[in-house]
């Protein structure tokens, strides 16, 4: 592809290591905390566990009947959690390739599963409810039903608080203590995805109406950013909590939260041009959590590595799947490797940096 010659003589910093087949569109990918394994979920159900070094498939887990939606590997632990359309949350001893627990998710069409950073608690959202389990599979709490399907669930960094994103509000709970909301940030609209700034101060959510909403959590103050081409499902914060990369179209748009007295309000975001096909849209964004690199994936099948703050030539690496969209991205724990899933059923692992 001609446009990748933009690097000139500089090297492509996204170096393919291996590629392997997955039975269907890759809907989620997760690294084990020790970096030894990487798991990929096919949209139709099966979960494959690969040797991260060689790409050799070690186990095919049955996943969820009719479909798996999300994966999350236990931090500091050995369990791989998954959720799907069969009303179950499943915990796998992934290295052994066996199922450890099958838990009742409370509703079919499970969408999200997320571990507390301690690895002790697991939140799983299905339909309008979210259940919190401990790592033995015991149910700790079922949080009150939301106004609509829980679109996203995230632990607020540095706390035991869990934020649920659903139609009309982002509601934060303290599930270890009870079911009363700690804070309700009401907003009349249909949100799709959220991301907490790593310092826990700003909650951003991308929306169906092609906007991004920022909440300064403690003050309950909000900002809305618009001008996106399509709905925004891709959000990624940089490690400093200063920059938020957003999708909602073919161009990565990076907001600077220190642009002015009111954060990004009124500022002109950085647009990372000449990366993805203008006809497509982004599908995923992932920032390193301790580095400056941002990866983007698009319906054009490309995976692009950016250094958004670089003065010249923000694009530092690129790859293109032979057919099908690039669907998901995940950085390994040491952040030296990047895994990317493909819509036509493939997983690729890169050395990046």
């Amino acid at each position, binding site marked *: 592809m001609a446009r990748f010659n933009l690097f000139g003589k500089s090297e492509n910093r996204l170096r393919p290591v291996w590629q392997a087949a997955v039975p269907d569109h890759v809907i989620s990918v997760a690294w084990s905390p020790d970096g030894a394994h990487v798991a990929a979920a096919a949209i139709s159900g099966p979960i494959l566990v690969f040797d991260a070094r060689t790409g050799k498939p070690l186990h095919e887990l049955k996943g969820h009947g009719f479909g798996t939606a999300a994966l999350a590997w236990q931090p500091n632990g050995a369990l791989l959690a998954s959720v799907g359309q069969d009303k179950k949350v499943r915990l796998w001893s992934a290295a052994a390739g066996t199922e450890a627990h099958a838990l009742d998710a409370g509703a079919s069409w499970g969408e999200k599963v997320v571990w507390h950073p301690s690895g002790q608690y697991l939140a799983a959202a299905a339909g309008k409810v979210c259940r919190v389990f401990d790592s033995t599979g015991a149910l700790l709490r079922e949080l009150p039903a939301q106004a*609509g399907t829980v679109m996203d669930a995230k632990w607020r960094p540095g706390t035991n608080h869990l934020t649920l994103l659903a139609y009309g509000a982002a509601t934060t709970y303290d599930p270890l203590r009870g079911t009363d909301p700690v804070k309700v940030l009401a907003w*009349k609209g249909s949100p799709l995805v959220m991301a907490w700034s790593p310092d826990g101060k700003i909650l951003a959510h991308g929306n169906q109406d092609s906007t991004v909403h920022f909440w300064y959590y403690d003050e309950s103050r909000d900002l809305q950013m618009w001008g996106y081409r399509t709905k925004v499902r891709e959000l990624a914060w940089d490690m400093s909590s200063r920059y938020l990369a957003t999708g909602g179209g073919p161009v990565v748009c990076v907001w600077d939260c220190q642009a002015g007295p009111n954060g990004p309000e009124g500022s002109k975001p950085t647009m990372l041009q000449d990366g993805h096909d203008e006809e497509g849209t982004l599908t995923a964004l992932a920032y390193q959590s301790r580095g400056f690199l941002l990866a983007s994936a698009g319906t054009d099948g490309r995976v692009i590595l950016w250094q958004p703050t670089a003065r010249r030539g923000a694009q530092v690496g690129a790859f293109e799947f032979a057919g099908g969209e690039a669907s998901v991205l995940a950085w390994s724990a040491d952040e030296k490797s990047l895994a990317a899933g493909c819509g036509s059923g493939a997983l690729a692992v890169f050395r990046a940096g």
Partner: protein
Amino acid sequence: MPATQDRVPVTVLTGFLGSGKTTLLNRILSANHGKRIAVIENEFGEIGVDQDLVISSEEEIFEMNNGCLCCTVRGDLIRILGNLMKRRDKFDYILIETTGMADPGPVAQTFYMDDEVKAATTIDGIVALVDAKHVLLHWDSHEVQEQIAFADVVLLNKTDLVTPAELDKLEHLIRKMNATAKIHRTKNAEIDLTNVLNVKGFDLDRILDHEPDFLKAGGHHHHHHEHEHEHDEHDHSNCDHDHGHCEHDHDHDHKHEHKPQALGVIEHDHVHDTTVSSVGITTSGDLDARKLNAWMSNLLKEKGQDIFRMKGVLSIKGEANRFVFQGIHMLFDGKVDKPWGNTPRSNKLVFIGRNLDRDELTAGFKSCLA
């Protein structure tokens, strides 16, 4: 956007519990058509499937934009359709079975308002099942009226339980509400499936293909007119007829220029109807694109909530080709179609909705004549 034929067609089945939706679904699924069909059902039914797929979902209505009613969509359908379209296991056809209480508006709007859904699927038609024996018991309910008003096809089902005279009366009532739907009388939902699948009810290339009778009446549009064909640099830059465009235009350039013209407006027995009705307008003469745009924008802004469906073929001054459009509430979907050629130029349009004021609509439309 991929061509229409590359997108998976979707048929929406509406009707009250007991009207025969499940029977029809089972007929479609068991027919030997060789198609892989996915069914999204909001109501628990006894559906027998082997190679097909049935997904149950709970209706979730979302207002996409703050308080904008025309942007009301079905969040559950966006999620499920998005998921289905990503699978390697492709489906040839999708059926959505709604509950008897569902509003067809948000279902239809979902296919225009969500980019992902719009790119991969296309709404083919809304099929309403009507229980001929019992429908009159809840004839005044909003749900019954909306389901009939939105429909491209009405199956007047359970014909064996009523007399032919009752059927005639019922068909007449349905026809008054929805002048463009095709009405079929069925027993046990027995029908040739070509009448319910691939009906292309929202296809701009097929707008008024089967012209409703009430637009044919009068015959005013049959005589030939001489028109000035100005082919000089006409552009459509003033014409804000985007596909799936949501009319938020606040342009109040709404002039009424009543020109004395022979207009083939068909008189009906109601002038102002508080229930659901159809208003058809047929006129000769060319329309001023700017006036039409202003009138339509204003109409949709003011009355969009009450207009369920509209469709029409228009003759725009200076434009050699027909302009075709269809709409759902405030959503307007239009395009420049084939040339008029030797066909007499005329304007034909139909509004289906609640509280429609025939005289006001007609006068407003006439004021757009060039």
